[in-house]
């Protein structure tokens, strides 16, 4: 499975997550966001970029509880809470934002 943008193909798994993290780029993120029915704003990009940075540091996609806490630490308490993150990603910040960020499905997400 996968999709194609401007001649570049992106492989995805059965749930729509990118198979190769390295293939990710902004175009892929925009495509995946449309698939998720998420209208990307600056606030969305902030979370997506945060997730990519987190993955780069720790080699895992964080569980939502961990993501919330980490965002609070880095971007302030007004952003480090479930309400804010669910408003941006209604179907679950860890799941939806991770997908858009090209990360695998979070470990420890129940």
């Amino acid at each position, binding site marked *: 499975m996968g999709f194609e943008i401007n001649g570049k193909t992106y492989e995805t798994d059965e749930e729509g997550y990118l198979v190769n993290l390295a293939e990710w780029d902004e175009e892929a993120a925009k495509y995946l966001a449309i698939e998720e029915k998420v209208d990307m704003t600056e606030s969305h990009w902030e979370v997506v970029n945060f997730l990519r940075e987190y993955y780069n*540091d*720790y*080699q*895992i996609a*964080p*569980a*939502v*509880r*961990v993501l*919330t*806490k*980490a965002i609070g630490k880095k971007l302030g308490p007004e952003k480090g809470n*479930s309400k804010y993150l669910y408003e941006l990603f209604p179907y679950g910040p860890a799941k939806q934002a991770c997908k858009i960020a090209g990360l695998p499905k979070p*470990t*420890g*997400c*129940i």
Partner: protein
Amino acid sequence: MDEESSGTVKKFAFINRKAPYGTIYALESLEVVLISAAFDQDVSLVFADDGVYQLKKGQGTKAVGMKNFSPTYRALEGYDIEKLYVEKESMEARGLTEEDLIVPVEVLTSQEMATLMDEQDVVLSF
């Protein structure tokens, strides 16, 4: 996942005794540890025997084509898993010191490790 779990909190220890890439034990253990964090239990991680090698700094797996999961041990703190123990005898027998490890740990003697394991409600062996 945000809700507080209502069940009683039990003491869980994960005993890690295998080196990281030769077998799947280390990675499997780490994944179970991350999942266990969602259940708000009292989790301890023990590294003994070749398990100490899991925490060695400077791992680079690019050339062997495997995922380097050692940075993930540094994420454990964010998952509120902060009890990491290394057996002194195992560490020293491998020519390692605490400075060689990717995360801060508490070093325990075999005797202290014996007591720690004995106190657990559940021991998971890897």
